[in-house]
């Protein structure tokens, strides 16, 4: 029985010994490549306001929904030069992910889908090395006056750019995976 007693003591004390391990405080993870913010800036070709659509989600997959802001008003039957930006605002200064998208242009495409009575439309004004659109720069036509239109901006990683309709901006056959999806409601005056 003595042996057992010693074993018992040995194991018990080893548990306590192990318990005295180091207590390193973990390092905060510096989140990379996270997109917190999408910004679509529309500069009118003629006169009018510069319009900015922004969706910002600082807690990423946390419970808070993205905060959506719209600045400026859109005039009917007007052309705009549009540029889209993707930012990681968790870093200081904010990291511009648009550059990474542009660097890997052949693996990315931004899509614009509309709803509402204005029948707004976009045309791509940029291209990757294969001549396929990227969608970071666009021409935007506002269409007719109507309220409650929406535009959904979708950034796809590794879409099938040569699939039917994809280079015209139709997302249906694009495939790939969604990195960003943001919807904005707007009125055309």
């Amino acid at each position, binding site marked *: 029985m003595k042996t057992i007693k010693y074993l018992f003591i040995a194991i018990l004390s080893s548990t306590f010994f192990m318990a005295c391990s180091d207590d390193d405080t973990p390092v905060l993870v510096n989140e990379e490549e996270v997109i917190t913010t999408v910004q679509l800036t529309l500069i009118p070709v003629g006169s009018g306001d510069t319009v900015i659509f922004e969706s910002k989600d600082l807690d990423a997959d946390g419970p808070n*929904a993205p905060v959506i802001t719209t600045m400026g008003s859109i005039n009917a039957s007007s052309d705009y030069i549009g540029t889209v930006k993707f930012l990681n605002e968790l870093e200081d200064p904010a990291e511009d992910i648009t550059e990474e998208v542009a660097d890997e242009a052949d693996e990315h495409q931004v899509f614009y889908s509309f709803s509402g009575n204005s029948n707004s439309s976009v045309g791509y004004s940029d291209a990757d090395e294969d001549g396929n659109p990227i969608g970071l720069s666009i021409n935007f036509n506002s269409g007719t006056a109507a309220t409650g239109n929406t535009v959904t901006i979708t950034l796809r990683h590794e879409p099938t750019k040569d699939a039917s309709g994809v280079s015209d901006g139709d997302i249906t056959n694009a495939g790939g995976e969604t990195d960003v999806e943001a919807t904005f409601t707007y009125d055309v005056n």
Partner: protein
Amino acid sequence: MKQIIVGIAIALSCFGYSQDCTYTFLGELSDFHDGTPIASATIFIKELDKYIVSDIDGKFKIEDLCSGTLTLKISHIGCETKTVSFIIEGDTYKTIQLEHHIEELNEISVSGNTSKKETKTAQETVLKASVLKKYSALNIGDALKEVAGVSSINTGNSIVKPMINGMHSSRLLILNNNVRLQDQEWGIEHAPNIDINSAAQISVIKGSGALAYGGDAIGGVIVVNPSRIILRDTLFGKTTLGGQTNGRGISISSSLNKNYANGWFINAQGSLRKNGDFEAPDYVLSNTGANSKGFSVRSGKKTFESGFEIFYSYLNNEIGILRASHIGNILDLVNAINRQEPLIIEDFTYDIGFPKQDVTHHLVKAMYYKRFKNFGKVNLQYDYQNNQRFEFDVRVGDDKDKPALDLNLETHTLSTDVILDSNSDYKLNFGLMGRYQNNFANPDTGVRRLIPDYDKYDFGVYTTAEYAVNTLITLDFGLRYDFNRIDAQKFYRTSRWEERGYDVDFADIVIQDLGTQLLVNPVFDYHNFSASAGIKYLLNDYSYLIGNYSLSSRPPNPSELFSDGLHHSAARIELGDLRLNQEISNRISASYNYSNKDLNITIEGFYNRINDFIYLEPFGIEQTIRGAFPVWNYLQSDAEFYGIDLSASYDITETINILNKSSYTVGNDLENNRPLINIPAFNTRNSLSYTNDSWNNFSASLTSEWTFEQTQFPDNNFETFIAETNENVLVDISTPPNAFHLLHFYSEVTFKTSKFTNLNLALSVNNLLDTNYRAYLNRLRYFADDLGRNIMLQLQFNF
């Protein structure tokens, strides 16, 4: 040389002293353990070429001996044959101790031919080397499906997690050479880190009856044992070469065993496996290749009285995950579900891209045991495990080649086990276990930690008893207490912390406020009690009944407590819960076995009631910048599992055998009154085989595997608005796929190449008809069909 000298000595002694043959030798045989006399042992007197038998007191007498050497070879049922020599120079009295519990020797490691069960009254099935060899190029989870009631939950076909009666992951306990595997087993996409080629025998124990291994095995225990140590001067081993058409895979595995009669042994085993992209009947499953490297070495000394063993094993698995299963949001999931084939189909390649897993597991074990006369056996064991898991996602920019998950889990365990077996009517076993575990989540991934850094302390104490009431009835009992402490340091998003209400309930554990994130230090203690009681009743020479009750308690695992983030392949946010407590299982089971020369039937039934069963359930939808995601929470609810497993084998003639294995399992959530998710549907396997030993042990079999459609499932479907198309769609993530029926063929032949060597040639065809199917228990069923036809050829050289 030795024998020659002894022989000459004997010869000389006989000649030299032939005149002086008047001595008497008195011998007494007794059991090593308890000193009881061994009656009716056969004693062969080498010098006289004569047999005698010991009397009821274990005594025997040899008269008219000449002076010189006397060599006795003593054999007895249940004992190892022992040879002893004495120098006779006058009348002699000797006590000779026999190792009367030869079967006990096997409990250290079990042979490939004779199977030894780990338990007496639990529902246990043993898979022998002859069965395991069929799975040399596959996974341990595939082999375990040979047991009725065991299925698997898969992520593709390379990540195969065993499932016993509908339970998996933390509810199963896996032992590799008596070391409890600590390899982040909580995740569904974390396969057990065991190289099937290192196993000589695997026992599957349903339920938690085997308390010596742990008190939290609510589903069951899987015991993997390496080959048996033979106390003989011998060198043996085997080399297996395999090739298969699906995945264009090749595998090689080799093992070498050197044993010495004095107990020393050394074994080494290694295996390599390489597969490219697997194929469904109609297309390539792109990025499903897998590479596996395994190595183990075991050495020590084993004698009846004492012994030790040092064991090291290494396993590395690099597994590609179907490229099409990596999705960004719900729309992608809807698109994937609605498509008939995966979105990404490329040409076959051996290259493994992203996403993929790269997991390395090291295991070191040192064990010592000693037997004490009239007492029993004491085991002392230390083991260390290091599990390094990398998961690579599809990432962009500079982070492309950076893992998205980098976890290192280290575990130290010290344990002792004492067996008191000096009385042959009962056997008492008790033990202690102390364990320390550290998890380190590397922050360099640039992705928030899925599992936080933690320290975990476990302490366990148990006792089990086995009592033979009479020759027909055996009882066993067990009691166990476990203490677990988990001490974690985790960053929460402040928004999540508040949304969960932790700011109210756990305000005191916040140690640092970083603005948008909080560092918290949860320390949770769990006290777990488990117990078991069982009876085995021999009805007659052909049949027995087994009844068993077990109580077990499982504390929540790190994933259930701390999960916090987006799960890519499921397109959902999974959230752990700090408020979870243990789940408590009460399981009763009964089995009936009948076996005679031709027929063998086992029927096993069970009912398992689990209070506070932990499971994932959809909770709501959250908006993120990637779109909307369903949120799944870990919740607790009372649940029940019940089912019946049948296996039957019948020899129609000497050469023809039919075999059936069927299993039916039900799992219900009792609080919400609905079925539980991921319960295997009714399945039945029927084989017809032909064996002819005179044709070089030829055998061929055709197996039909029929899995029904699961009609009992929780409806977790949800509607979501797809902005791109401006419509609401129903996301059907719940409906199980159709029933499927597969045919498999297996044939083998063994050629004797010399007295001690043979060559086994096996040809098998899985999914003979190239049937298209999707399995409910495959997490990638939304994205692609399961495997098509696979023809495998395997050569095994045994020497």
